[in-house]
């Protein structure tokens, strides 16, 4: 059964009582929430995700909860806090910002609990059975690119975390709503009017954010890992011409290792993982100022499997 098959009442009741467990790629999430209306975020963005019905025999990777504030705070500028295993890591957000708080909380959960994977700060998409990896720091354009490519038939594995399994030598899918910030929101609206976006959440620490619903296929094929074939470091620059060029393998190795959250934690396993990715992939960098041109370059690149 999927989240979308639960009625609003069932979903609300489950979130408020025992909590809801669902499969998110290689993870099992357990969420409890008493935030009014938050269930609508799950209905909109996680409706294809399979739920686990109690009694639960599986061990959840993340026990998360969203708590509205108590006391007078319930009435005066109400807030919401995110907890992971009962611990709070962020200062509370306004109650209406429960969805971005949940998404960023999940980012933190994945980043802190996934040392059995080599964890790249990267968007990962699949085309023709191979993975296109877009490593980049915030502002590099990786989320906007991954949103646009997912709207052009690429399967989205992740817009934020590239989960590379050194044992299986594949990227694991972890498709969640794509977080878009500020100008990117209108850029994606203009790029494809069919894009399904959440409401906008203004005045967050990242500015205004909105979330893009990932195509159904990205969630339905969430069990399939993908071997890397193209590693492209994007850089967005206003007014820049678009060009895609090869970079030396050694430089690619160092940039990829520097981009990994847990490279040094994993030691030799991390080194081996990066070495395999570099050996099996074309290493490129993409500088772009126009989204449509960048998408065309990447479509062209991935039209031929190396």
């Amino acid at each position, binding site marked *: 059964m999927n989240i979308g098959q639960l009625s609003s009442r069932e979903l609300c009741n489950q979130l408020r009582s025992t909590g809801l467990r669902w499969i998110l790629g290689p993870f099992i999430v357990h969420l409890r929430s008493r935030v009014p209306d938050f269930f609508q975020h799950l209905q909109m963005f996680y409706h294809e995700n399979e739920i686990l019905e109690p009694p639960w025999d599986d061990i959840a990777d993340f026990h998360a909860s969203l708590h509205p504030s108590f006391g007078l705070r319930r009435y005066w500028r109400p807030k919401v806090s995110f907890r992971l295993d009962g611990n709070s890591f962020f200062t509370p957000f306004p109650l209406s910002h429960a969805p971005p708080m949940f998404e960023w909380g999940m980012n933190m959960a994945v980043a802190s609990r996934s040392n059995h994977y080599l964890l790249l700060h990267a968007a990962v998409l699949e085309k023709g059975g191979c993975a296109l990896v877009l490593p980049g720091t915030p502002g590099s354009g990786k989320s906007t690119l991954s949103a646009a490519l997912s709207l052009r038939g690429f399967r989205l594995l992740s817009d934020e975390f590239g989960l590379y399994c050194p044992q299986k030598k594949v990227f694991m899918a972890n498709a969640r709503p794509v977080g878009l910030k500020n100008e990117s929101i209108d850029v994606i609206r203009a790029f494809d009017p069919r894009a399904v976006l959440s409401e906008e959440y203004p005045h967050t620490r990242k500015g205004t954010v909105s979330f893009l619903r990932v195509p159904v296929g990205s969630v339905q094929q969430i069990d399939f890992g993908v071997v890397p074939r193209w590693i492209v470091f994007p850089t967005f620059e206003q007014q820049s011409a678009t060009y895609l060029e090869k970079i030396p*393998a050694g430089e690619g*190795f160092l940039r990829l290792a520097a981009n990994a959250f847990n490279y040094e934690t994993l*030691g030799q396993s991390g080194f081996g993982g990066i070495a395999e990715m570099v050996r099996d992939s074309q290493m490129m960098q993409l500088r772009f100022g126009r989204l449509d041109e960048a998408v065309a370059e990447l479509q062209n690149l991935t039209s031929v499997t190396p």
Partner: protein
Amino acid sequence: MSILAPAPDDGFPLPTPHRWTRGKCPPLVHVPLGDHHMIFNPMSGHTHWINELVVDILEILAQHPMDGRELMTEMQLDPAEDSNLAEMERILNELDRLGLIFPVAS
């Protein structure tokens, strides 16, 4: 980390010369990438990007301790030129600083 040369009678440590070795260190993990190599040092957990000259130096010092002059002879380089020897000594000191080789008394 380094093994000091034996002290002379007056109690002051001997200056160089000494030899360098990789001794009984766990083997480095090598990945050739074009004309450079990426190596992983299991002892430090650090990754280094090195050229083929350094690869050869590390391989030779894994077999036998040598000083800079012996190393250059082994590599068929000309140790007679002072600038060459100085450059080799600089490389060896840098590799020592990175924990890839260690000095031993001659």
